[in-house]
């Protein structure tokens, strides 16, 4: 009996030890066999030499929606949208990590650093980057040359706006990404409020009254007099200033705050004190609500993608998910119009990059070709969704046609964008833009709220920057 007990207790102890220590090796071995087996799989159908899984990394569902709707080879989309199956059986796996506070970048960095050791089917094949940090990836060898490695030709790319290629061209002249959109900035205003404040809702006449910041301030005062807010929140006008700076954020290890960004601080503080804005923060609930039927905000600085991606959904009283239709009569659909605003700028833009180590080069070529070069698809995206796409011929065709956007009250906004898109200058972008722009906005919110003075806000910005980017040593403020 005793012996049985002894044996039993020994077994129990062993089982426990095994259970605890087994975790580590088990995890290691479970991923290890995956690599050889998939390699074997590749070997057996060497003719195809394509991975069966296409991993795409992005930070929201914008590209996913475009892909599922317009990529010609889509066979089936999973119910939870986590995967898309292509006609040749390749499964597209979507990895979506929210963008804010460098979250997407950090996760992507982690994955790209581990790319070399990852199993073939879990390697990133395509990842998306934003203008604010595109350069960070363009100048590394984590991104593949779109022409040499992926096989797009100059004639494929000829219709794209030049700036969309300049920003993702590395030091050696290799093109590292392609985009389906061009993103000139705009000022989207409420027609009904413009009528009440300015007596007109005609885009050309409204633009005349908003054509510089002094005039813009006058309109803001007039709007406030009638109980409206000129802007929704603190960050709305940020891009109009930050895109018109004289130098990139960072030179060497020194951050230089441009005088133009301090103009944003001055203006926003003034607007807050005079109640010209509604004290919201970009993307928060109140900001979204301000764009809807209950909003009393004159207008929003936006970029082309904002019209379809944010503004349209927010304008509806009954969201499409609850059975509402995108038509005049539902909320304030049709009450918006766009004009250029006081200063030209751009905002955002998404580029498709091919990751080094991908085993799906042919599929990537097809994705890039159909979703960024194909004229008819580009045109269809624009007419379907109001998005401004990266195809000069198609866009100029639409600009000169009788195309009308019902959402914008019958305005042909493509015409406006076709004029400004070729003028976009992204030469002042850098790899640190997202982190520094966000830090700037975040730390100065307290100043606008009146919690702290300007000096403390500046000090907080410096602290924030040094936490985010240990390699940056100094912050220089304009005198």
């Amino acid at each position, binding site marked *: 009996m005793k012996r049985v007990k002894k044996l039993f*207790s*020994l077994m129990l*102890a062993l089982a*426990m*030890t095994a*259970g*605890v*220590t087994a975790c*580590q090796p088990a995890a290691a071995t479970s991923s290890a066999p995956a690599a050889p087996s998939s390699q074997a799989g590749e070997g057996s159908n060497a003719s195809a030499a394509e991975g069966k899984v296409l991993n795409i990394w992005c930070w929201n569902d914008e590209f996913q929606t475009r892909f599922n709707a317009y990529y010609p080879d889509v066979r089936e989309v999973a119910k939870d949208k986590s995967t898309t199956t292509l006609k040749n059986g390749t499964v597209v796996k979507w990895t979506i990590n929210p963008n804010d*506070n*460098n979250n997407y970048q*950090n996760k992507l*960095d982690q994955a*790209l*650093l581990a790319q070399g050791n990852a199993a073939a089917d879990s390697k990133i094949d395509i990842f998306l980057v934003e203008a604010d940090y595109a350069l*960070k*990836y363009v100048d*590394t060898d*984590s991104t593949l040359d779109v022409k040499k490695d992926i096989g797009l030709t100059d004639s494929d790319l000829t219709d794209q706006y030049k700036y969309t290629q300049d920003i993702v061209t590395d030091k050696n002249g290799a093109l590292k990404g392609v985009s389906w959109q061009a993103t000139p900035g705009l000022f989207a205003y409420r027609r009904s409020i413009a009528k009440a404040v300015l007596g007109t809702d005609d885009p050309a006449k409204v633009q005349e009254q908003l054509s510089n910041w002094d005039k813009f301030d006058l309109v803001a005062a007039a709007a406030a007099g009638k109980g409206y807010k000129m802007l929704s929140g603190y960050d709305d006008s940020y891009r109009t200033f930050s895109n018109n700076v004289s130098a990139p954020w960072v030179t060497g290890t020194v951050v230089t705050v441009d005088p133009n960004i301090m103009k944003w601080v001055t203006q926003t503080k003034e607007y807050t004190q005079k109640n010209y804005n509604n*004290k*919201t923060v970009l993307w*928060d*609930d*109140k900001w979204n*609500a301000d764009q809807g039927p209950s909003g009393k905000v004159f207008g929003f600085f936006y970029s082309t993608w904002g019209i379809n991606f944010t503004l349209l959904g927010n304008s509806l009283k009954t969201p499409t998910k609850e059975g509402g239709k995108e038509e005049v009569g539902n909320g304030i659909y049709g009450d918006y119009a766009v004009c250029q605003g006081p200063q030209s700028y751009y905002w955002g833009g998404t580029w498709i990059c091919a990751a080094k180590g991908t085993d799906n080069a042919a599929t990537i070529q097809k994705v890039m070709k159909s979703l960024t070069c194909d004229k008819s698809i580009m045109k269809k995206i624009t007419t379907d969704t109001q998005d401004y796409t990266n195809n000069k011929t198609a866009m100029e065709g639409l600009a000169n046609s009788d195309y009308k956007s019902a959402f914008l009250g019958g305005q042909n906004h493509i015409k406006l964008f076709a004029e400004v898109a070729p003028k976009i200058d992204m030469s002042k972008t850098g*790899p640190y833009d997202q982190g520094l722009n966000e830090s700037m906005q*975040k730390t100065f*919110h*307290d100043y606008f*709220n009146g*919690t*702290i003075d300007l000096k*403390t806000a500046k000090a*907080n910005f410096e*602290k924030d920057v*040094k*936490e*985010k*980017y*240990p*390699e940056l040593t100094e912050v220089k403020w304009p005198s």
Partner: protein
Amino acid sequence: MNSENSPRKRKSISYAKWGYLFIAPFFLAFLVFSLIPLCSTIYYSFFQYFRSGLKIIGPNFVGLKNYITLFQADLPKYLGNTLLIWVIGFIPQIFFSLLLAAWFTDLRLRLRAQGFFKTVIYMPNLIMASAFAMLFFALFSDNGPVNGSLISMGLIRQPFRFLASVAGTRGLVAFMNFLMWFGNTTILLMAAIMGVDPGLYEAAEIDGASSRQMFWKITLPLIRPILAYVLITSLIGGLQMFDVPQILTNGTGSPDRSVTTMIMYLNNHMYSKNYGMAGAVSTVLFILCSVLCFLVYVNMTRDNDSGEKRKRGARH
């Protein structure tokens, strides 16, 4: 005893080795998941070691540079934030817990539906801290239901911007910590109070003591060890305060970094993969935790001992 045991000893089994075998898994797990990371954290705190984009910088030995930067970059402020928020939350927590524990255990009160109340007060602890913080974020936002009802009741005209004011944000974090933990503390204190010899209360009652006297003179001194335990665990938990303020302020610790706790500061460094600085923050936190716990422990037990000694001395 010994003489009885000695003949058996020769053929006896040493149970000690089974004991060691049984506790071995814990020590192995502790070694792998706690001790080695702890040592490597302290080790890396002396190095410059971070990631710049896709490049890894370091590790380069820099001596105490990380610590110097840390104390220059107002680490004391974040420690102050953490302790202040903890204190604001802990005072009502211990007050209500003691009160509730005293009521629940008071035989004369004979509260009805005790099980129900105990469950309800424990409930907030079962909700995930992050979900709880999200809920408060929605409730207390500028156009949230709290402001909505305050305005419709006519108490305020403009919405009060809780999350834009230092007192509002700190208060909310402390309030949430209080709500989440007072139930747990109540249960602990009830167990402590019920462990007190009922004979003492009977004797006190016969001597004509009021229930207030009984609480201050009998209950409180006798549950002091448990009170010390509650204080220490709450202090450790307080120093490690993270999820509630992180979610409530969306990781910013705003306004003016006034709700940035130690761990949030640590997280900021971890977020940018700055292992050197993060290691230094962790080491400071580790030392602080140990010192504070030691102080509190000594303080709470010393009084007890000296009291006993005095009593013994009186008896002699």
